[in-house]
C-alpha cells in the first residue's frame, strides 16, 4: 500500500456503480430496486441514518457520519450487483466551483506524496459548455497550475474522476472493486447445505453473488457433535445473513439417523448413506421454503464421497437442481475466497463434522446405486426423514446477523 491507497479527505457520500450487463434487460428495474433494498438493509443493520438513493443507473450512499466511511465502503465491496465504489465529493454543476473542488480534493488526497496525475471526465449533461475531453483538459490545467505536478495519462499516481450531471457534479480519486454479479435475491432462493468447514460457506457466497438468496440447513448430531460446533455454524451463517438482510438456518437433528445407519451396518457406505439422508431432508425443507435449488460445497475428488460415481449416487435422489459452485475449484482457490469473505478464520476452528462419525477407514470410492439402495432397504427411510424434519429447529438471523427474538 502506498500512502495514496486510503482516502484522506472527509466524505459523506459514496457512488456505487452497478454491474453493467444486467442493466439492459427487461428486469432492470426489479434488479435495481432489489439492489438498493439489499444495500440499504446492510447499511442500516450497522450504521445509523445511512440513506441509499438511486439515480441514472447509479447508487448513492449518503452517510450522516463521515467516520462511517470505512465500514460503508466495506459493505459496498461485499454487495453483489455492485461493480465498484468511490467516495465522492458533490458540488453544483458550475465550472468555477468544479475547478475549486478538484484542486482541493487532489491536494488533500495527495498529502505530501510526490506523483503524477490524470483527469478522467464524463458528462451526462450534454448542454454543459465543455465536452468531456475539454473538461478533463481544463481541470488538468488548473490542477497543474495549482500544484506544479506533472500529468501522466498512462500511469498516473493519482487519478481524478469527474462526472458532470445537470445540476450536480461528482469528483473522486479512489475506486474500489465490488464483487460484481447480481443482487442477492434476484435469482430466487436456494437451500444451502452448510457445515462448519471451509467449502460450504464459500459455495453459499458464490450462489449469493449470482443473485441467489439463501436458506441454510445444518445437520447437527448431539451428543456426538458438540454445541460449540453448532455455534460455529451459526457464526458462519451470520456472515452469509448480512449480505441478504437475514437468513433462516434450519438445524436438523441428525443423531437418530446416524445411529440407525450404524445399527444397520452401514459400513463402507456409511458416508454416502448419511449424504443421501441429508439430500432428502434438504430437498423437503427446500420445497417447504419454495427454494428452487439445493446448493452444496461439493468439490470433485476432494474426499471419497465426492468422486463422480459417489456424487451421482446422491444427485439421483432429488429432482431439484443442485448447484455446486465449487465443483472444479482447487482447495487453495476456495481458501482464498474464504479469507476474502471473512469465513476462513471461523471455518478452521477445531470442530467435529457429523460426516466423520462411525466411518470406517476405507470408505467406498465408487459406490453403485444398486448397492446403496440395497443398504437402504434395511432402514426405515421415510420414517427417519419425517422424524428428523419434525425435530428441526429454525433459527432466524436478522440483517445484522444476530438471531431474531420473537416480536422483533
Amino acid at each position: 500500500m502506498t500512502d495514496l491507497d486510503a482516502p484522506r479527505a472527509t466524505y459523506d457520500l459514496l457512488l456505487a456503480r452497478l454491474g453493467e450487463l444486467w442493466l439492459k434487460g427487461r428486469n432492470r428495474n426489479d434488479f435495481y430496486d432489489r439492489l438498493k433494498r439489499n444495500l440499504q438493509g446492510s447499511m442500516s443493520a450497522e450504521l445509523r441514518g445511512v440513506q441509499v438513493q438511486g439515480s441514472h443507473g447509479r447508487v448513492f450512499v449518503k452517510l450522516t457520519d463521515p467516520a462511517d466511511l470505512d465500514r460503508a465502503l466495506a459493505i459496498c465491496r461485499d454487495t453483489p450487483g455492485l461493480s465498484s465504489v468511490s467516495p465522492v465529493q458533490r458540488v453544483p454543476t458550475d465550472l468555477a466551483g468544479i475547478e475549486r473542488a478538484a484542486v482541493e480534493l487532489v491536494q488533500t488526497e495527495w498529502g505530501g506524496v510526490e506523483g503524477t496525475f490524470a483527469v478522467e471526465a464524463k458528462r451526462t449533461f450534454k448542454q454543459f459548455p465543455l465536452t468531456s475531453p475539454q473538461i478533463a483538459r481544463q481541470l488538468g490545467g488548473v490542477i497543474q497550475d495549482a500544484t506544479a505536478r506533472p500529468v501522466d495519462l498512462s500511469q498516473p499516481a493519482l487519478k481524478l474522476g469527474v462526472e458532470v450531471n445537470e445540476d450536480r457534479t461528482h469528483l473522486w480519486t479512489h475506486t474500489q472493486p465490488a464483487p460484481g454479479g447480481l443482487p442477492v435475491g434476484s435469482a430466487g432462493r436456494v437451500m444451502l447445505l452448510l457445515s462448519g468447514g471451509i467449502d460450504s460457506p464459500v459455495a453459499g457466497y458464490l450462489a449469493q453473488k449470482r443473485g441467489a438468496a439463501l436458506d441454510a440447513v445444518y445437520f447437527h448430531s448431539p451428543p456426538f457433535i458438540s454445541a460449540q460446533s453448532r455455534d460455529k455454524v451459526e457464526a458462519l451463517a451470520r456472515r452469509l445473513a448480512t449480505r441478504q438482510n437475514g437468513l433462516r438456518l434450519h438445524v436438523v437433528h441428525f443423531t437418530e439417523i446416524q445411529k440407525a445407519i450404524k445399527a444397520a451396518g452401514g459400513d463402507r457406505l456409511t458416508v454416502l448413506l448419511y449424504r443421501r439422508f441429508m439430500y432428502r431432508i434438504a430437498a423437503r425443507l427446500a420445497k417447504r421454503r419454495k427454494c428452487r435449488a439445493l446448493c452444496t460445497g461439493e468439490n470433485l475428488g476432494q474426499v471419497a464421497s465426492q468422486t463422480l460415481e459417489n456424487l451421482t449416487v446422491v444427485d439421483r435422489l432429488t429432482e431439484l437442481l443442485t448447484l455446486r459452485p465449487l465443483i472444479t475449484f482447487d482447495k487453495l482457490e476456495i481458501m482464498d475466497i474464504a479469507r476474502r469473505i471473512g469465513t476462513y478464520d471461523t471455518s478452521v476452528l477445531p470442530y467435529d463434522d457429523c460426516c466423520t462419525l462411525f466411518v470406517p477407514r476405507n470408505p467406498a470410492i465408487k459406490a453403485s446405486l444398486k448397492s446403496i439402495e440395497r443398504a437402504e432397504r434395511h432402514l426405515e427411510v421415510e420414517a427417519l426423514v419425517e422424524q428428523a424434519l419434525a425435530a428441526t429447529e429454525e433459527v432466524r438471523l436478522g440483517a445484522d446477523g444476530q438471531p431474531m427474538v420473537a416480536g422483533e
Partner: protein
Amino acid sequence: MDLIYLDNAATTPLDPAVAEGLAERHRTLYGNPGSSHPVGRAAGRALDAARARLARRLGGEAGQVVFTSGGTESLGLALLGGAGDTPARVAISAVEHSAVVEAASHLARWGWQVDVVPVDAVGRVTPAALDAAIDRDTRLVAVMLANNEIGTINDVPALAATVRAKAPRAKLVVDAVQAFGKVPFSVATLGADCVAVTAHKIHGPKGVGALWTRATLRPVMRGGGQEFGLRGGTPSAPLAWALAEAADRMPGGMDGVTALRDRLWAAVRAALPAARLTGPAFDDGRLGNNLHLCIPGLPSEPLLNALAEAGVCASAGSTCSKGRFSRTLSALGRTKDEGAWLRLTPGRFNTAAEMDEAARRLARAVEALRAVYD
C-alpha cells in the same frame, strides 16, 4: 432440569458474599491508589490492607505480594521477569499448565534450554527425576503444587531442597493456583522463590491474582511503577480485597468438598463398575476436590456433550488446551483411545444430593452411548 456444576478446577462460582462486598467496593473504593487526595488514599489503604491480609494467608510478608490479573500473569512475571539477560537452563515439570509451558517456550526463543522433568505414574515430580534434569546452569525451575487435571500434590519442600543442592542459583517458581485455599501451605515452608495464586479458583472474581516473591524480578508490563515497580497499571483495590476475602473464606483444608468428591466417586463406581480412577489414590497426596476417571470403550467428546446436555458441567481435562489430548495424561503414558476421560471437580457450593444426581445422569449418558458404540 437443574444444572450441576462440577468444573470447579476450571473456574468457580463467585461466593455471594464476595460478590456483594465487591459491588459495594467498586462503588466506594474507586480511587486510584496512587493519588494523594482522600479518595485515592482510601483506595491505597484498602489495597495495603488486602496485601497484608493475603500475605498473612500465604505465610509471607506484605512487601512480597504483587497483585496481578491472575495465575497466568503471575507465572509469566515469575518466569519471564525472573530470567536474567544471559540465557541458561529452565526446568519445568511435564505436567505444568500452559501458562508455564508457553512462558518457557518464550524463554527458548531467547536462547534458553528448556528441560522437561518427567513425572511418575500418578503425575508426581520426584526429587530424583528433578535432580537428573538440573545442574548448576539451571536458573529457573517451575513445578506446580497441585496438578490442575488429576489433582496430584507435589512434595515441594523436598523438591526445593533438591534445587538448593543441585542448582543453587535457580529460582523455584511454584504454580499454586489449584492448591491455594485447598491445601494448607505456607510460603515459608515450601522453600519456593515465587508462588502464583488466583482468585477465581476459590470462588473469587476472575481478573485478579497475585505473585508472592522473595526473588529479584524485572517487570514484564512496564508503566507507572505500581506494585513495587513490578507491574505497571492502576491496581484495583476492590479486586485485591476480593482475592484476600475469597482466600480467607476458604476453609483451608477441603473437608466438606472432599466428602462430596468421595461421595461422587462412590456413586459413580456403584453405577459404573468399569470406571477407573486416574492419578493418585485419595489418601496419597491428591486435591480433595479432584476426581478424574476413565470410562473404557467410549470416546471423551460425545460423553462430555451428553453430560452437558443432561445438565452436568464437567471437562475432559484442562480447559486451556482445547482440541489437543491432555499434556498431563500424555506424561502419564495414557492415550486418547483408552476411553472417555472425565474430570469432575465439586466445590463449596455443591450439595450431596447433586453428587448422587450427577452420578445417575452420568450412568444414563454412558448407557445411551454404549448402545451406539458397542
